[in-house]
């Protein structure tokens, strides 16, 4: 089977499954969408019209590349002491997460570690990275410890601080892809996902593995290539209007311009597709389509002698990987189309060249999907911080606080989700247009290539909105 046929098969299989099982659509995070003034599917049409209008405006008015260089403006120098304080804070919070997971109550809603990992860390840090830049490079506890150890080793060696081994270039970001999918598997598939002790133990194991890798291959290389979270948050931080250089100077730059200089190596495309695909599966796994499909898949695995729990986990694993493959297939189909426009570049080059346009989409998916979780469950941190072990403590005097579900209406959440999706895809379209202007000398080719990228963006927008609207809790 050729690569192209395989892609079509993936798209077709998931599309056919979706068509075969019409969504009855209860809602996830948007329970009150019945109050919306127009049907949800019309939002998709409106979003598509916004994207087409953006495409026309970009093609006609955005005449020269604007985002191919960062154009940095120095703002101020961040003192080393501040970075040190932030690193110490990150390390202390990590210690609390591990300790509360292992020693605290095993009721997930009363334990600090579960809410912190799934809400603050998994949703809050990506948003902060897009707003303020790569804050995780300072907050990362494994990075802090590895840097300290490397500094100590360098002093013992008399100033030499080269890592003992070179990170293999062929490996690229594949370890990060595996770890990120592994985390998504833990969150969405594993039956013990809410167990604080499991999370505490896994956090500790991840910490040890990351520190060991950084000591062997170098802190920066390992954290940008093999650390799943370091690579993911680092990628998102390239959208930010701020960046910090080695000497501590903070620069202002055009938003999204950091993505143009993004290092694209083995596994980079897979990393971005994993972000979008795992978020897609998070929505899809609550959807009526999946609820109809999953028992059939599960019975296949039960038929080969597996117990119900592993059979369910295997069925969900297949679903998770299928969603990542589906996202990759959509992108590659679009790139295939771009390659048809001109004889100038091949598929592989174009795939690497335009992959940065998926980063805003990944963020849009994360923001749209987890916004309600962040707004509501995020409030739980206020009382869990006071009583991290769930043993009745009241350290900050906030343990009596409760989640206020009236803080935002369901309709408002829906509008934020739609706005996030549309804005993310307009951002992706802008990046793609800017890159097309930079690589195609012929304006007709540049414009035509963007019809394909428009197709990709509209497909991801409509699919994202359909997922949000059809998801049931």
């Amino acid at each position, binding site marked *: 089977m050729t690569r192209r046929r395989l892609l079509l098969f993936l798209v077709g299989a998931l*599309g056919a499954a979706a068509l075969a099982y019409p969504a009855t659509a209860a809602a996830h995070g948007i329970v009150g969408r019945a109050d919306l003034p127009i*049907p949800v*599917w019309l939002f*998709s049409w409106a979003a*598509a019209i916004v994207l087409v209008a953006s495409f026309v405006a970009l093609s006609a008015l955005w005449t020269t590349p604007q985002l191919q260089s960062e154009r940095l403006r120095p703002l101020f120098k961040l003192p080393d002491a501040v970075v040190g304080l932030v690193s110490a804070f990150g390390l202390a919070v990590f210690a609390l997460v591990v300790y509360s997971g292992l020693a605290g109550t095993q009721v997930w809603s009363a334990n600090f570690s579960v809410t912190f990992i799934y809400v603050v860390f998994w949703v809050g840090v990506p948003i902060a990275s897009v707003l303020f830049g790569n804050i995780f490079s300072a907050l990362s506890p494994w990075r802090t410890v590895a840097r300290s150890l490397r500094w100590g080793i360098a002093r013992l060696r008399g100033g030499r601080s080269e890592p003992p081994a070179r990170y293999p270039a062929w490996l690229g970001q594949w370890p990060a892809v595996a770890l990120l999918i592994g985390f998504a598997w833990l969150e969405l598939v594993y039956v013990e996902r809410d167990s604080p002790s499991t999370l505490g133990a896994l956090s500790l194991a991840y910490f040890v593995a990351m520190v060991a890798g950084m000591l062997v291959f170098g802190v920066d290389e390992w954290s940008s290539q093999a650390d799943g979270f370091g690579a993911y948050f680092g990628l998102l931080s390239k959208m930010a209007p701020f960046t910090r250089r080695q000497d501590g100077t903070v620069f202002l730059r055009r938003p999204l311009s950091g993505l143009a200089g993004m290092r694209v190596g083995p596994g980079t495309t897979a990393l971005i597709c994993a972000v979008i695909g795992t978020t897609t599966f998070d929505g899809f796994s609550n959807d009526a389509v999946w609820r109809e499909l999953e028992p059939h898949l599960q019975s296949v695995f039960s038929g080969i002698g597996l117990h119900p729990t592993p059979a369910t986990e295997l069925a969900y694993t297949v679903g998770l990987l299928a969603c990542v493959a589906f996202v990759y297939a959509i992108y590659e189909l679009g790139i*295939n189309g771009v390659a048809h426009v001109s004889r100038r570049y*091949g598929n592989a080059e174009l795939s690497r060249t335009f992959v940065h346009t998926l980063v805003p989409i990944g963020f849009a998916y994360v923001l749209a999907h987890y916004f309600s979780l962040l707004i509501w469950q995020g409030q739980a941190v206020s009382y869990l911080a006071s009583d991290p072990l769930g043993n009745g403590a009241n350290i900050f005097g906030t343990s009596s606080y409760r989640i206020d579900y009236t803080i935002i209406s369901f309709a408002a959440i829906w509008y934020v989700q739609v706005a996030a999706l549309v804005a993310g895809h307009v951002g992706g379209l802008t990046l793609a247009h800017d890159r097309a202007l930079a690589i195609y000398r012929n304006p*007709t080719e540049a414009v035509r290539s963007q*019809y394909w990228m428009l197709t990709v963006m*509209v497909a991801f927008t409509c699919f994202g909105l359909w997922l949000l609207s059809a998801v049931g809790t």
Partner: protein
Amino acid sequence: MKLRPSPRGALPAPRRWLRFAFFLSLVAIVALAFAAGDVGMLGLAPALLIALLVSRRRYPGARLLVAMRARALQRSPRRGLSPLPATGRAVVPAPRGGMLLARSLAHRPPPRLLLAR
């Protein structure tokens, strides 16, 4: 951004079965909406509609967009920001003699307008 041109050239036009798949999906969505009353899937229709269009190598409005871009390039506002008057006659002469010496010794070169006089 430097790219290596493809040695193989472009691939052939999108296959007919790809277009057929897009068309079939679109028909199925519309049929579901009208026959079964399930309008939720209509939200996917815009993507399929555009995909169907471009897979037929139709780029509606592309010529117009290119023409609009050319016009926008011609009246680029950057030209108005030039420190020289936009008459096209003001030519900056190459510094010679004393001016050349002064310029090479100066910490900061003289303004371009001064040189143009």
